């Protein structure tokens, strides 16, 4: 888990009050974890990885782990997925080389692991075992993703979000009815407004990777003129960031489509944060140069087809998309996310969750969000 700014400040203040700089290191060690896999032999690890299994790990605070290693003089091996997959044995590491947020291998004779007690470091114990992971977890844990064109991923994520939003629809309705109770809307207006907000989320998910249609991004992944735009690839070399561009683009697009409502900004910001919550909404001027001129027509057709949208005036949609791109190039200032006490916080957190899950589900081609509720692996209805 990354350390939040407020947690870091808290640690600094505590260190100041106690007048002891070591307090910082102690706190950090308590907060940071490492993952440990307990095995019977290194050969077994190599064999299992080849067969498509992954080691089950247990987490332990970083400081505790270092203490035990020093006390017991235990051999520790680094779990490096890529090296082991190539058939190489894990390397032994010295205590000073052990880092937080990494996975390490211990032998069962040293770890003293049991399911009830966890890691005891007291004599012979059990192994943690192996499991076969689904693709989504591989993406999350080991960075293994599939290659996709921009369009495939946009359509895929959009299809995924349709299923996920169906699950969340009753919650959305409940939120809408309670927050806007004072408006005394008739039943038809309520239903239509809910559909419109859900539709805004779908549009946002469809365009969540709009920043990848920048020339700079496409160039960095080896796109060539005439080819379909690239969405996901393993061939990455100094890839520039893409997610923040979704904020000014969607902010403008959604307000053009649905009107000037503050919570549409919250949806745009939540989508721009689909990789990191650190995104503030700030984008510099004139940084959004499109891969080529065909992007407008491509986005227009995609919006119409992916969401089965019937618009009388497609020419108008083209203009709206152009204005949205222009808006990104005007740059955007810092935005204020809804606070916990804000009525629109629900819509912000919901959008942030569904965009992440739609993104992961499509990248890994599996069902992640409340999988028990919604069909099989390929059910994207």
């Amino acid at each position, binding site marked *: 888990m990354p350390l939040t700014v407020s947690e870091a400040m808290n640690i600094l203040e505590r260190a100041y009050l106690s007048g002891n700089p070591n307090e910082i290191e102690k706190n950090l060690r308590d907060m940071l974890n490492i993952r440990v896999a307990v095995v019977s032999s290194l050969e077994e690890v190599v064999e299992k990885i080849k067969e498509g299994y992954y080691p089950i790990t247990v987490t332990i605070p970083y400081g505790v782990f270092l203490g035990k290693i020093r006390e017991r003089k235990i051999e520790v091996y680094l779990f490096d997925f890529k090296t082991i997959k190539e058939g190489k044995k894990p390397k032994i590491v010295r205590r000073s080389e052990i880092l937080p947020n990494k996975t390490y291998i211990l032998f069962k004779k040293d770890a003293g692991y049991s399911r009830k007690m966890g890691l005891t470091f007291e004599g012979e114990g059990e192994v943690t075992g192996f499991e076969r992971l689904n693709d989504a977890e591989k993406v999350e844990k080991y960075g293994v993703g599939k290659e996709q064109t921009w369009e495939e991923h946009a359509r895929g994520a959009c299809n995924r979000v349709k299923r996920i939003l169906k699950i969340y629809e009753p919650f959305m309705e409940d939120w809408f009815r309670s927050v806007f109770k004072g408006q005394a809307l008739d039943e038809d207006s309520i239903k239509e407004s809910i559909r*419109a907000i859900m539709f805004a989320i779908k549009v946002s998910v469809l365009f969540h990777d709009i920043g990848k249609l920048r020339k700079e991004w496409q160039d960095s992944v080896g796109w060539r003129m005439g080819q379909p735009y690239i969405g996901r690839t393993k061939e990455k070399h100094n890839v520039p960031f893409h997610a923040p561009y979704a904020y000014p683009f969607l902010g403008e697009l959604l307000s053009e489509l649905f009107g000037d409502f503050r919570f549409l900004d919250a949806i745009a910001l939540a989508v721009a944060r689909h990789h990191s919550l650190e995104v503030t909404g700030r984008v510099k001027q004139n940084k959004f140069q499109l891969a080529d001129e065909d992007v407008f027509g491509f986005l227009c057709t995609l919006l119409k087809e992916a969401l089965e949208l019937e*618009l009388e005036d497609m020419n108008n949609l083209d203009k709206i998309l152009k204005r949205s791109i222009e808006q990104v190039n005007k740059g955007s200032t810092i935005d204020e996310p809804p*606070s916990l006490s804000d009525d629109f*916080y629900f819509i912000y957190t919901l959008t942030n969750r569904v965009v992440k899950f739609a993104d992961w589900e499509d990248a890994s081609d599996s069902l992640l969000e409340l999988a028990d509720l919604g069909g099989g692996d390929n059910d994207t209805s």
Partner: protein
Amino acid sequence: MTLPKIRLKKSTYKVYKTGLPFYDAARLIGVAHLFFGTASSEVEDKGAYWEVSGVDVERDEEQIKWAIKRIAQLPTKTRAGREQKPLEYKIHEFLHDKGHINKLSAYYISSYPRDSEFASVELRNSGLDGKKRALKVEYDAGFQSGTRGWDPLSKYEYLTTRTHGKDKILVKHDIEEVVTGTLGRGFAATVSSRTKGQTDTMYILPIFSNHFVLSGFLDFQRNYQHSAGGHVAAVLAAISILIDLTSKKIPVMDFTYTREVKGGQTPIFSESGYLGFEKICSLWWDAVKEENENILRLLRQIKTFLKETASSKDSQSQGLSRYLAHFVVTLDVNSLVTIEKLKARILYSGKAVNLFRGYNDVMEVKEIMGVK
């Protein structure tokens, strides 16, 4: 499918300025919280008035009550057994009635000049009629008759004798203004200091830029004091509020205050205006925008130092706090030099001073002063 529409209604309220900064800020914050408290309101300065707009939401009455209850003292009984309710308490009760809220809403939607929506009978029943709603110094010292400012003779044209007993009403405000002003006051931070029987109480509110979004409730620490005096306490309050608002990302430009100094129960003078902390506010806002953690860390260091020395009786620490407060407001070299001299003296007496230590701190101090 055709594009569905969002059928929600939006409202725009206008808060006309009176020219009294604290009272205006309180009414603006009051209107934003009263009508959009638990949602988002967009505020735009239109010159003569502020426009506060947003989607109409169901008000969270509990939160409104919470804000007013903070300043509303409980009723007292006279010798004759009659119940006396302070103004804030009456307003707290007044807001229980949904019909009253609707009238308040209608008032703020209408354009200037506007008349109160409430009939005098209705106000009499709530005990909010006539002289009973005289505004105290807590609303803005500008409403007070009597001496104003620390050097009243410099503005002799405003000098009048201070009335005894009940405050004199100089301006009769519509009840709508009083209600939102009271609610806004509930969000003010209280800065107090006591010296030799004198009590100096200051209420401060942040002033925002000409276009901002207020999302959810304004929340920051509300009570401050410092043994080195009211000015140091005000700086501590300002820095602390800025830090508390860092995550909310609202552009604070300065602070407005209203203040009263009393000797025992006798008022000595009162004043109101702006604190003049634009430099530190703009420094903070730039740091928030650019996510400059180093500057924010330095501001936290200053806050922690002032907080730690808040009840110190050591004259050296108090002196250092005064110069630090001065430095925060002016960001000038002279105060910094004095700070370093005072630090050297304190260090000589064997005490540690955790302020501007180390290479990084020095670099940040140079950066905020614009020295390369």
